[in-house]
């Protein structure tokens, strides 16, 4: 095997092929290649996100006239939302319900995430799959399941009645804010567990060993090392639950009743029975802005607190 063979290989003799100019440009610029790969997705997302949102914003300044629209820009919708107390109240209630659900979920799920991160040594993946599996299945059906469970004649009530623990069915279980909060917390648990788990998993175990070596007991170790280091995960989890649940429609529709209805229901009505699309658009925009403001505020506060701690 000598070097002579080197010149005899087909396809390797001079001149070397240089592919076209576009290819050369692509070869030289990595970013260009990256974006061209990404372009179909970006195009779809642009069409699917930017354009509809743009139109939504535009439509919020229109007025509904029968089945058409008066496109003269006006802020009447926003004014009405600001004046009539029902809109503000409903928005506040939605934010309150989401917050309650978020807090409940995060508090309840943190120990679970902690357990899998620190106390499961084999088959971690299996635990994670088990915890998140319900989340991938139909949201509608899971909410419906809670309706069954919480109903007047539902599982909890009939069980309690049968065993004689109560005499009359518990009323507050269904068609109330409580029902909505419970259901939301249950339905979005997986969204909370994953970021907190990832955050906890990343903590370097030798930090904990160092803390123990320096005199901390388990509780102090948790408070001083584990909790602060897992804070990013907690923040992500909180945001990941708060933001989607604020605009939830299915849960309040199925088991909120009048007391537990949220702004999502009102928005849907604008596009349905009430037939005031511009109003619906305006409400949607208001909802998004509220979420954005609260989320940003939350992030700034936590950042501020974090800087103060460290």
């Amino acid at each position, binding site marked *: *095997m*000598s*070097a002579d*063979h*080197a010149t005899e*290989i*087909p*396809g*390797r003799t*001079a*001149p*070397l*092929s*240089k*592919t076209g100019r576009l*290819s*050369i440009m692509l*070869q*030289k610029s990595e970013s260009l290649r990256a974006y061209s790969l990404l372009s179909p997705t970006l195009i779809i997302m642009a069409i699917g996100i930017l354009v509809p949102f743009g139109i939504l914003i535009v439509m919020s300044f229109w007025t509904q006239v029968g089945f058409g629209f008066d496109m003269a820009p006006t802020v009447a919708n926003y004014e009405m939302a600001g004046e009539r107390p029902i809109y503000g109240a409903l928005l506040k209630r939605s934010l309150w319900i989401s917050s309650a659900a978020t807090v409940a979920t995060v508090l309840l799920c943190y120990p679970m995430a902690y357990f899998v991160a620190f106390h499961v040594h084999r088959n971690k993946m299996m635990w994670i799959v088990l915890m998140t599996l319900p989340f991938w299945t139909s949201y509608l059906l899971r909410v419906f399941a809670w309706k069954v469970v919480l109903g007047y004649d539902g599982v909890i009530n009939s069980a309690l009645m049968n065993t004689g623990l109560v005499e009359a069915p518990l009323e507050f279980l269904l068609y109330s804010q409580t029902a909505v909060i419970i259901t939301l917390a249950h339905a979005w648990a997986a969204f909370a567990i994953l970021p907190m788990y990832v955050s906890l998993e990343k903590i370097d175990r030798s930090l904990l060993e160092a803390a123990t070596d320096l005199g901390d007991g388990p509780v102090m170790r948790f408070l001083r090392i584990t909790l602060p280091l897992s804070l990013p995960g907690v923040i992500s989890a909180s945001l990941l639950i708060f933001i989607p649940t604020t605009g939830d429609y299915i849960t309040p529709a199925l088991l909120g009743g009048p007391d537990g209805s949220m702004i999502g229901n009102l928005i849907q009505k604008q596009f349905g029975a009430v037939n005031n699309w511009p109003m619906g658009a305006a409400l949607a925009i208001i909802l998004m802005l509220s979420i954005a403001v609260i989320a940003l505020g939350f992030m700034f506060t936590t950042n501020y607190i974090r800087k103060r701690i460290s």
Partner: protein
Amino acid sequence: MTKNNAFISFQNVNKFFGKFQAINDVSLDIDHGEFFSLLGSSGCGKTTLLRMLAGFEGVSSGEIYIDGQPMSGVPPHHRPVNMVFQNYAIFPHLNVRDNIAYGLRKQKLSRTKRYEMVDEMLELIKLPEYGDRKATQLSGGQRQRIALARALILKPKVLLLDEPLGALDKQLREQMQLELRALQKTVGITFVFVTHDQEEALTLSDRIAVMSEGCDLQVDTPTRLYENPVSRKVASFIGTMNFFDGTVMSIKDGNAVLKVDGLGEVSAPAGTVPLLAGNTVSVAIRPEKFLLSNKKPAGAQCSVKGQLNNAAYLGERSHYYVSIEGVPQPVAVSAQNRDRAKEAEGQSRPVWLSWDSTAIVVLKDV
């Protein structure tokens, strides 16, 4: 930018990553059939230079020629080079045979022919009968050889090796070094080898390019790099070196007379660096070039008295550290342990160092 006759030629090559300059005006030539090493510590740019040769990084300015052809704009899969990656990059979803035969697809050979070539290769790398093994069942050393075979089967003009022995333990590494050298001689291809291990480079290479911070400091044979470094940086990078400050007194007939701190008046070959009387220079002497004795040696060309502080016993040799008046650092002296029972040698006592004037290297940079 003109072509020259070297097989591989880097001409005024520069590489920027954003604002950071990774390669700084590097020009070097590699001859056909050479075992050429790029040597330097991490971050010096040696791997970047290799990747530019392979085509995975573009050149910011300058040109690279392989066998007379300019390589800019030529993507990696069209270049007549093949690379052995640092972590071997064996395809985990293919078995050994398919890994080695991977690049043969474009040649449209019959299956029997392909398998024949693979078997030849397996013989060459001393892993016959391994064809059906899954890639994931191999040890580090085996993967390394498969990566080699996979590249060599395509009969490239140049083989690039990116620190291929770094992940192996010492004994395996030494064995693989010998095998690689023998392989290169057998196959006759140009090898471009990247390493941070200077011993490895010295053992394997025909020539070495010492790199630091994106520049090539010196390109030379191992012997000349060791005995005639052109700068303090190169001198201290390869092996240990003692440095003394001095001034040039006079130059006559290719010999320079220098006044050196601690050593007194010393004569040395002037070397290839142009020296003038009055220049401040560094005088460099390797530890093994000193002779250590307890009494002033008679008839030695140059000698100086010092105090022995420390000795370190290394089995086949010992290192001695001698402080000399006028020299800030202790002078390192290395001597083979010819006689046995050397315990007493480490005791602090006055000693004499002597050397031959040809052992001195005069460096212009201080």
